[in-house]
């Protein structure tokens, strides 16, 4: 198993939006997709996933619908709303800027100053 990292505060919402943006998923599917995308290096408390989903749905960033899972069980499927798509883009941009700046700061070496 690869070494795992803890989730940064507040990033779970962003990851959920990303996962759902790749196609409608049920809650368990969201978990699997995030772990798949992270290559299993991300530690997610399963119980914390659902409050985040409810929060996002309440904010209107994702929508839900009852459907049938692969093995024919009733499951609730989430999909991204237009507002969610905008939010994901904004968060992705700001994350990229943020990580570039932090990486720049942390990657600085003495002679470049």
């Amino acid at each position: 198993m690869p070494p795992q990292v803890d989730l940064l505060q507040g990033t779970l919402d962003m990851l959920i939006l990303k996962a759902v943006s790749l196609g409608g998923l049920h809650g368990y599917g969201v978990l699997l997709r995030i772990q798949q995308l992270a290559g299993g290096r991300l530690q997610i408390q399963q119980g914390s996933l659902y409050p985040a989903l409810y929060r996002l749905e309440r904010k209107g960033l994702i929508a839900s619908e009852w459907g049938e899972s692969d093995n024919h069980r009733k499951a609730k499927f989430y999909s991204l709303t237009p507002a969610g798509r905008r939010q994901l883009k904004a968060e992705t941009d700001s994350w990229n800027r943020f990580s570039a700046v932090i990486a720049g700061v942390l990657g600085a070496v003495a002679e470049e100053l």
Partner: protein
Amino acid sequence: MRIFRRKQFESDMDAELRFHITAYVDDLVRTGVPRAEAERRSRLEFGALEAAKDECRQAWGLQRIDEFRADLRLTVRTLRQNPGFAAIAIVSLALGIGANTAVFSLMDALLIRPLPVAHPEQLALLRSDTDRRSFNYPLFRQVQDRNEVFSNMFASTYREVQVPDGADMLLTPAVYGSGEYFRSLGVAPVIGRTFGSDDDRPGGGASGPVVVISSGLWSRKYGSSPAVIGRTMVINSVVVTIVGVMPPGFFGVEVGTAPDIWLPLNLARQTGDNASCLDNPDCWFLTVMGRLRPGVSWEKAASNLRVISLPSMEATLRPRMREDRKAKALARVLGVESGRSGYTGLRNRVKNPLNVLMALVALVLLIACANMANLLTARASARWREVGMRLALGAGRGRLVRQFLTESLVLSAAGSAGGLLFSFWSTRVLIGVLSTADNPLRLDLNPDGRVILFTAAAATAGGILFGTWPALRATRQGAAGILKEHTHQLRASHRHSGLGRLLLAVQIALSVVLLAAAGLFAGTLARLATLHPGFDPDHLTIVWVLNSRPPVIGPAAVNLFGRLMERARAIPGVQSATVLSTTPLTGGGWDDIFAILGRSDLSENQREADINTIGTSFTKTMGIPLLEGREFDAADTAQSEPVILISENAARRWFPSGGAIGARIRAESSGREPRRIVGVVGNTKYLNLREALPNTVYIPYTQTTQKGYVALRTAAPLGSTLAAFRRILREEAPTMPVGSIKTMRQQIDESLSSERLTAYISVFIGVLALLLTCVGLYGILAYNVTRRTGEIGIRMALGAQRRSVIWLVVKEAMAHTIAGLAAGIAAVLATSHIVRAMLYNVQPNDPFTMAAAVALLILVCAAAAWLPVRRATRLHPIEALREE
């Protein structure tokens, strides 16, 4: 909505989480993990299921609602356990809020509520002088022509007209309005048309005499049939055509009236109401209102009216006026005020009382709130340990505060619901007190949104006020503080009840103010009601006989009233009867300045006298002593020498050295020839009970045109006597209806309506304040005893005397009670001068009233203290200690 979908939400959430776990278990099993192990791992990795659910609910915004419902449940449960507490809190608040709502409703209806007309805010009420709101017709026409600030303007007057109803004449409330009346008010009729300037001409308009009727009359008399338009009716013997029906709720501009008929003002020339008044500049009988032109400010309107004052007054002067009166007339300045809420003669009478009452009921609401705060504080203290426990178990502070607030808001909601119910009843009582038989007060009593808003605001403010403090206090300590404190309760609780005692002091101070007010107003009413008016008001009935239209005048009228008087005397049970032109104490009458022949040194003020026209047997009927000379008899006729009776006051002022009998006096503006004084009678009140005893003179009814009332002194039950009189009247004058029949006692009651209103309400709220304070004090002392049970037990076990135990219980409240009393007395001394004008024969700082208020309070405080003190002194030391 979210609340109702609650079940759906829960089952969806369960299904979703179950799916997650099952799917994970399946995946694990598929990778080769044994099922039991997979289930264990899935539960482990998911984390606490119930916590996750709670977080989901919170994320969905359901938690607040859940908590609120839990708070409500808890509140209802705790209130049920303590029905006494709940009842006291709710009833005291209901009475406080109810009294406020009732007084505010009345104020709103009389003074604030805008008229139900188009854009009432543009309406202006005109004044013909600094403090006169009535106009004469010529002056109205002048102002109407000359002003540049009103788009239209109208004059109106409220009258009762005679409409035949079977064999009887029915007095029907009516309004005479000038041509622009309806156009200015901008209210459309339900059917037909209103009347306009074309209909308001001296000879009548093209359609002849027209009237507009109310929807009430329309449905009562014409069954709401549209065919009413064009039908005729008879008003004061004039045949008029109905041209329109006004919508329900429309009453014109005079608040408190409910007219059924609107007539063009100039039709009064034919119907006879104020017929001679229309062209007479001495008849001030019209209310004048105008609609401001768009863009014209109130300042501009006022200044325009000031400018046109002098020319308008000049154009309407009475011919042959004395120079000094002319100067006075020309100095009048027209004024303007907002006519948004219409006009009522009651306004001047009740404005001050209502403002004072509003202040008093606000104070009692304050006391009710303080009481609630006190009760809640005591409860919070009793629940000290519960709060500590819950804090220790992890309850948030905000959560606890919310719960306490819920409790107080539930109480105030219940209180205001009760208050609203109470106010429905009490507002009707207030209207009843202000209504008189002659002037029934017709007000729309359905409390409008404003009143409901007022109640709700009062309740919410009260709830927040008295809910926040105990809540904050109870949670300020923190769990450790509270639980630790319990061991040091004796010392700590001292601080807790500090606020309670401060509130008590405030309550007592306010109670002193309210009781003093109640004492002053009740004293005023009692003094006025028991005042001897100079005549004997018991067993005296006054019948107002209305003249027919066209009126019976001259010798025919004299003969008629003579016959009525004679025949009335023959009715069994009637001891004596006479004729009057003025009922005393109605606030109206007739006066003049008298020339005292042979004296020129008296000022006009001293020579002014109120006049009444009387028949024979006057002194016996009215119960007025004849002091000198004789009263009128059958020999005083229209042809005999003009004679007059004067009152004791007039005799003393005009003839200080005696010799009144035989002297001659002449009424300056209403009498042509001098009259010889033939007798002196006792002083009586004339206009009202408050006035100083005036000069009064009496003229025989045979020698004037004024009459209209028959006074009866009776012994038998009134019913049969009055029926007999009505029968006589119908025989003698079938066209003359009875205007009103009133005993003199009723007349006195009616003349004191605003005093009674003030006295009733102030006594009611004084008693309420007393009760609330009593409850407050009881609460504090009872709490003291409970809290110090252990201490009292120890002291008693160590041999403390009864007296020192009593002292222990009452001493904390004592200082605050005394401070409250002192503050209350100071407040009364500082503010009581405000009500001076409302009092009669009692000083605002009347020491007796003050002493009585304080004594009453002390008495009630002692009574309130008795129960807790008794409990304390009867405590058994052993049991008390065990409780600790």
